């Protein structure tokens, strides 16, 4: 009986936590070598026309305040350490959204001597938004899908192509 009540309490707390997380995703934007096309689209997403504050999205300056890391561009060898550092500075639970073809696979810069590849070569990525550059609607769609998955508890395992390179999050699974 006691155990049952404990479980109930735990369930309610978990539901409240998930509700709060889904409804208040604060984002930080990092450009690890993009051509700025995707960055301009992300800025367009934050303008009054699309108004991300409807979903509770706020662009934060500090990684310490953010829940979602929005990455654009391929990871250049120079930006790699900085990207990992930004990711590690974010408190758990944290999610990564890769925006644009280059962030997905390296795109036009694939195979360059100075390019590591897509974001998932370095960080565990939770959502991918394709496009070169993706429209603001696509970015909002990607974000909403991430939040829905978080809400349903169907968050897919973050994909990392090179597990040796990737920085695992503390719990192993950020969801």
């Amino acid at each position, binding site marked *: 009986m006691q155990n049952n009540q404990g479980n109930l309490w735990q369930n309610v707390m978990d539901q409240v936590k998930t509700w*709060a*997380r889904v*409804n208040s995703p604060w984002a930080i934007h990092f450009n690890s070598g993009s051509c700025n096309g995707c960055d301009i689209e992300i800025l367009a997403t934050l303008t009054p026309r699309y*108004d991300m504050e409807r979903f*509770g999205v706020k662009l934060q*300056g*500090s990684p310490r305040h953010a829940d979602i890391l929005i990455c654009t561009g391929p990871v250049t060898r120079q930006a790699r350490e900085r990207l990992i550092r930004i990711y590690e500075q974010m408190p758990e*639970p944290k999610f990564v959204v890769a925006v644009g073809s280059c962030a997905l696979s390296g795109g036009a810069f694939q195979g360059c001597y100075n390019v590591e590849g897509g974001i998932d070569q370095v960080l565990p990525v939770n959502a991918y938004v394709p496009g070169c550059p993706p429209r603001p609607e696509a970015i909002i769609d990607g974000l909403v899908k991430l939040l829905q998955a978080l809400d349903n508890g169907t968050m897919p395992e973050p994909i990392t192509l090179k597990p040796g390179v990737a920085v695992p999050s503390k719990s192993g699974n950020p969801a």
Partner: protein
Amino acid sequence: MNTLTTIITLLIFPGGLCLLLLGLAYEWVDRKLVARLQNRVGPRWFQPLADTIKLLAKEEVVPENVQARLFTVLPVIALAGALTSALYVPLFGLKPAYSFEGDLIVAIYLLSLLTLCTGLAGANTYNRFSLIGATRTLTQLFSYEAPFLLALFGPAIVAGSWKISEIAGYAESHWLVLTQPVGFIVALIGLMGKLELPPFDAPEAETEIVAGALTEYSGRGLALFHLGKGVELVVGLTLVAAFYLGGVANPLAFFVKTLVILLGLAGLQALFTRLRIEQTVGLWWRYGALLVLVQFLALIVWEGWVA
């Protein structure tokens, strides 16, 4: 029975829980109004609540090279200061929970505690953005505090009392915004400076210095600072409404008058761009302090000769 009433007063109504929720509600009204003025849809009604719960449930990172105990305790002191100051103001149009001669000064001091704690929190962390933010927070504190104080002392001089409840009682029969318009404007803008709202948000300018003094705060600490700011917003609005807009004798008057002031604040936020820190200081000391000082002297002379 008496103890029970005291506990309810402190923890649930009008202090404590109700005050926190009211702070969150007013924060939402503020954000929604600014959003509508910018032709946006704006946040949903539960947004500040969701933000707070999420922050409370998040990991709290204590960075390297900080005094860990101070880092943990500062947000608590900040929130406690704001909550304590609320005990001396007529919230919800009710009588203040506690009242004594000179509580106006104590309440204003307790309101400043939040800013002081923010400054200390920034100076405590080993981060250049926090340090710049802390410097700017404290610089701004020194620039708006004196004019804001003088603007609230104007009604006190006229009412002949340092007790918030007596000043509010006097203000119910005299709309001091008509007789002391300069004081009202300075108090209003002082409140914006206190809350670091947009024209005066140089201390937390996210386009220059990341997030100012609170850059290194995550999770619980950040949530407590946010809550403290919400409470401070309510207390500040109540003070200005009670002193200048004909008092807050009943709950209806309280909500109508504070929300009207909040509408004004939102309009100013949407209208002006950020001032640089030296422009803020210049504005306060060159115009704000001077104007309110002239009015203050005029009031003293008037009181001395007529009354």
